[in-house]
Every structure is written in C-alpha cells, then in structure tokens.
C-alpha cells in the first residue's frame, strides 16, 4: 500500500462528498432530525401510563406502595378485582403495565415471621414493550429507594427483606427516556446512513465506469477500500461530534462517561458500518438494488438492534439473530457510555465483538472489491 495513492483516492472521495449538495444536506439534516425526533417525540419517558393493579393483600403496605407509584403522575391507577380481569385489561390495551401484589405482601415486607421475601409481579403490555420496560425499571427503582417505608416500625433490620420484583426483563432502570433514545439514535443513524451512502456511492461509480477504471490502475483493493471509507468515516465522525453537541445543548443529554471515548468508539463503528455498505455496493448491479438492500438492512436494524424494542423481550432465536448485527453491540456500547458512564474495561467484551465484526467485514469487503468474476 502506498500513502500517496491512498491520499489521492481519499482526496477525490472527500471532494466528491462535499461537492454534492444532496449528500451534505443528508449528512447534516438526517442525524439532527433523527436525534430531535427520537429525543423529543418518540421518548419512552414514563408519564401517565395506565397501571392496572390487582391487590390481593389489600394491606396498608400494599396500598402505600401503589400510592407511591401513582404519586408522581408516572402511572394512572386502575384497580382490578381479580388477576384474570387484570390480564384481560392488558390484552384489551386498557392498561400498559399490570401490578400483582400477592396475599401476605405486608407480612413478608415487614419481615414478621419466617417467610419468603416479599414479592410483587409486573405484567407487560407486549405492544408497548419499551414503555413497559421503562415502567418496570421505574417500579424497581422506586421500590429500592423506598424500602424503609415498608418495614414495620421497630422491626429488626436483619429480618426485613427487599421486595422481589418478578418480571420478564429489566430495561432502562433509570427510566429517563431521552438518554435512552439519544444513545440509541447514534446507532440507528450511523448504521443506516453509512450503509446507504456507501452503497450508492460505489454502485454509481460502477454504473459510470469509474470503478472499473479504478480497478485497472495500480491502486490495490485495500487502497481503494480505505480511500473510500476513511474520508467518509472522518465526515461521519464529525457528524457524531455534531450530534453529541446538539444532544447536549438542545436536549440536555450528555454522555455520563467520557465523550472522547464515545467519539472514538463511534469513529471505529462508522468504519465497520461503511465496510458493510461497500459489501452491499460491490454485490449490487444497480443503484436501485443497492438502495433496496440498504432498506432491507435497516428494517431489522430498527426492530432487532435494541434501538426501539428491548432484545430481552424477544424470543430466544430472535435474540441470537439480533446478536449478529454490529449495530446491536454498538447501541449497547452507546447506551452504556451515555447512561452508565462505562469505560473501555467494562465494555471490553462488546468492543471486542465490534473489532471482530470490523475485521471480518473489512476482509469480506476487500475480497468483493478485488473479485474478478
């Protein structure tokens, strides 16, 4: 590989990108529009959710728990006399989340006698999985914060036990909708745009004949690949910085962890995703085919990457399929940095997988570029 040739390839790619008003407007407007839409409009913040309650204990402790849950206008309480009625209401869409308080809750919560830990059950509305997941997280955090309230006055601390919440999944326990959506939006926007722009860019070159011309110059496949993805990667990294700033100043959502680490990880992920675009392009005969493939890629990206729908709520087989999308791992990383403030050590397994995806996709993209039919 020769640096001069690579520099020539990169310069042309950057010039072509910046001189296309459409590309520039897409690069700026799509990330920001997505950020604002997903941040403001599609926030999964829990407010005014219909909470169905079946209180089989009907004790002061259970009534206090429900009162606290509805006190902050997060939930609107709807009481049901039987568990069956509660489930019917869930299925009918009358409520988003169901709370079942079993008999003996008060006794178990206060730690009187030799009993099992106090337990409540949360039932999800599958159609509102993200919101229900958030609701569950909210209930958990509320219970954790207010466990003292449920102890009987003067009860022995060692005798009292934390309330056990039985649900299918725990999701977004902080229950803050904006960081969750903002962090996920990076994954969605970067995955979709990088693939779309690269796929169209190379296939257009194939149609106009410049790609064939490039293949008969001394430029190697690696130089052509890097000449394509490095400048685009740099442009998308600027996009990431822009998105971080807009999310911070407009939505007041800043990464809880290192912003530099976040940008560095994103810059690497962009290269991974661009390589995927190169593969789509190199295996497409027309721009229409490349766009169709990009769109087909974006559907599972939204549905299976965990961007909107919690992966843990999916059937096991689908969960395994979700794991093969690099976006799934990147979105986990972005949320971990934005919401938990995780660093490289905590994220090593996910980063390792992203590197594995990156190397595999680059090698495959290279073989496609160098392929002689």
């Amino acid at each position: 590989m020769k640096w001069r040739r690579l520099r020539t390839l990169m310069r042309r790619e950057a010039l072509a990108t910046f001189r296309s008003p459409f590309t520039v407007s897409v690069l700026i407007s799509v990330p920001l529009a997505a950020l604002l839409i997903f941040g403001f409009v599609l926030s999964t913040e829990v407010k005014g959710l219909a909470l169905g309650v079946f209180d089989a204990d009907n004790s002061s402790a259970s009534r206090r728990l429900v009162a606290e849950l509805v006190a902050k206008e997060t939930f609107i309480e709807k009481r049901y006399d039987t568990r069956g009625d509660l489930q019917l209401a869930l299925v009918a869409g009358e409520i988003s989340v169901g709370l079942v308080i079993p008999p003996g809750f008060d006794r178990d919560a206060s730690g009187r006698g030799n009993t099992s830990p106090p337990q409540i059950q949360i039932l999800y509305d599958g159609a509102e999985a993200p919101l229900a997941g958030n609701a569950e997280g909210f209930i958990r955090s509320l219970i954790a914060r207010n466990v003292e309230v449920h102890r009987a006055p003067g009860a022995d601390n060692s005798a009292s036990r934390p309330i056990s919440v039985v649900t299918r999944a725990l999701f977004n326990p902080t229950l803050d909708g904006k960081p969750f959506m903002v962090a996920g939006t990076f994954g969605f926007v970067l995955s979709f745009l990088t693939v779309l722009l690269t796929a169209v860019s190379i296939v257009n070159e194939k149609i106009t004949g410049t790609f064939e011309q490039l293949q008969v110059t001394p430029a190697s496949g690696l130089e052509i690949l890097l000449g394509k993805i490095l400048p685009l990667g740099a442009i998308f990294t600027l996009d990431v910085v822009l998105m971080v700033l807009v999310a911070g100043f407009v939505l007041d959502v800043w990464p809880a962890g290192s912003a530099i680490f976040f940008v560095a990880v994103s810059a690497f992920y962009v290269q991974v995703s661009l390589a995927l675009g190169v593969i789509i392009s190199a295996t497409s005969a027309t721009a229409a085919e490349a766009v169709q493939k990009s769109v087909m890629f974006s559907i599972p990206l939204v549905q299976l990457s965990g961007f909107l729908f919690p992966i843990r709520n999916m059937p096991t087989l689908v969960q395994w399929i979700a794991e093969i999308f690099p976006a799934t791992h990147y979105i986990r990383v972005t949320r971990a940095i934005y919401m938990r403030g995780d660093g490289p050590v905590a994220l090593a397994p996910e980063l390792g997988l992203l590197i594995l995806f990156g190397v595999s996709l680059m090698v495959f993209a290279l073989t496609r570029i160098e392929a002689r039919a």
Partner: protein
Amino acid sequence: MSTAIIRAVGLTKRFGDFTAVDDLTIEVEAGTIFAFLGANGSGKSTTIRMLIGLLQPTGGSIEVDGIDVIHHARRVRDHIGYMGQKVSLYQGLSLRENVEFYAGLHGLEGQALTSRWSELSERFELRQAETEKAEDLPAGIRQRAGLALSTLHQPRVLFLDEPTAGVDIRNRGLFWELIQEEADSEVTVFVTTHFLEEVDYCDHVAFIDAGRLIADASPAELRQRYSEGYQVDLEAGPDDSAIIEPLAARTEQIDGGVRAWFPSLTPEVLGRLEVLSRERGVRASITQAPMTHVFRQLLMQAREAS
C-alpha cells in the same frame, strides 16, 4: 522470433452454461493497431476485460508485455492504459481534477505531471476544457479526454473498448488520428469497434462471432479472402480493356467502359493501369470492397462451416 506484446492462448470464459469466449488464441504485434470486431454480444468486451485482468478466464493463458495477467493482474496495470465504453471521468470534478486524480494513482505528480499534461492537453485539444466539470463536457471532448487519461502514464499497451461509440463523424476522424499517433510512438493499441469502416485505420483485424475467432488477418488480406477485392471502373474501349482484362478475376461491360475486379492491386496491375492512364488517357476509378460486405461474407462462411 515473434514480437507479440499481447498473447492469449486458448482463452475461454463461461458464465454457467453459456460460453462467452471459446478457445480464443490471438497475438498482437508490438506497435500495431489491432482491431477486435464482432457483433453485440459476440464476446468482444468479455475478451478485453480478461486481457486487462478485470475478469478471470475459465481457461487459457494471457500474457501482456511479458506479464502473466491471470496470476499477476496488478503487475500489468502500470504497463497498460484502458478506456472503457463509458468514459470514466468523475462527475463533480473538473477535467483538471480528474487528471490529477488518475495521475496520482500512477505516481505522477508535480513537475512531471505538469509537463506531461501540458503536452497531452495541447495534442488532444483539451486546454480550453480543463476547468469544465466532467458532466458538462461535450461527447467529443469527453472521448478525447478519456483517451488522454488512459495514456497519461505512458503505457506500452492501450486497450480501447468501443472508444468512438456515440461520437460524431468529425470527432471520430480526429480520434483515430490520435490513436494512430499513439501507435506511431510505439504504443500497441488493442481496440474494439462496431464501426466496420474504422478497420481501415488498423494494421490487423480479428473477427469474433459467438465467442469464437473466425478471422485474424490484415484488412487487405480479409478483403482478398472474403470479397472480390478491388473494383476498377475504366472509361475505355475494347482495345484498351484488353491490356488489363487478363489480370482481372472477373470483368463486365458497363456504360462507357468496363468494370474489372482484382483480388489485390499487385504491382503488375498498378503498372498496367498507369500505362492506360498515361499513354491512352483512360480514366480509372478504384473502389475497395466495403468492410460490411467482407464481414457479411465472413459470417456467412463461418456459420455454414459450423
């Protein structure tokens, strides 16, 4: 000893059950213009793509300028220039920026590039168009720019795939003059075309039909083999005609004279025509058999034989 700069032996390309090129063997002498002709879908472009290393043959061997193209496709790229059916200029970039891009890929920069491009832009009449965006260039200029770019790094072999498609007659003529100038400076030119009259600009012609080579000779030899050769119309009386008729393959009477056909214009034929013209004042007009006729005959015979 052969001075072939392009040598393909038993070249075959199959796409599934379809054989696009079938056991093709050709040799191209250095410094010549080699025309590769055939109808649409006959295998011309497939062949040229294999010769420049863009397509992996199913069988056979290819050597260009002494390099095994099948096993060392990248190594040959500094030795060849290529101009595809679509002139490969990047839209959005000016002609000058396109030049700098392709030159950069061949390691041509700074003063060396300035000097080389100055020479080419003068010769190819591109100076006025340097600052124009590629998409704004007229077809003729685009075509000349494409040729200039393919010769930028001074390759030893030029591969041109239907370079004059979509170009008007005046620009086609100008374009062929430039191709001949390249050949004069010892560049070997391998060119495909479907304009049969352009064959007369070339030193050697190969015809391909349904992937098989059906002829490989000079234009004159092909005319000799697949037509009655040269048609000579003489404004002459019977006595005058008698001087030339014994050498003709066939003659017939026409208004005011005689029409004779000669397989080739040998010195003896030319000598007698000169005698008729100079000593007896006989006017003669000589017409070559059109290449379309040659190609038709060639195809007919090839298909009858197969």
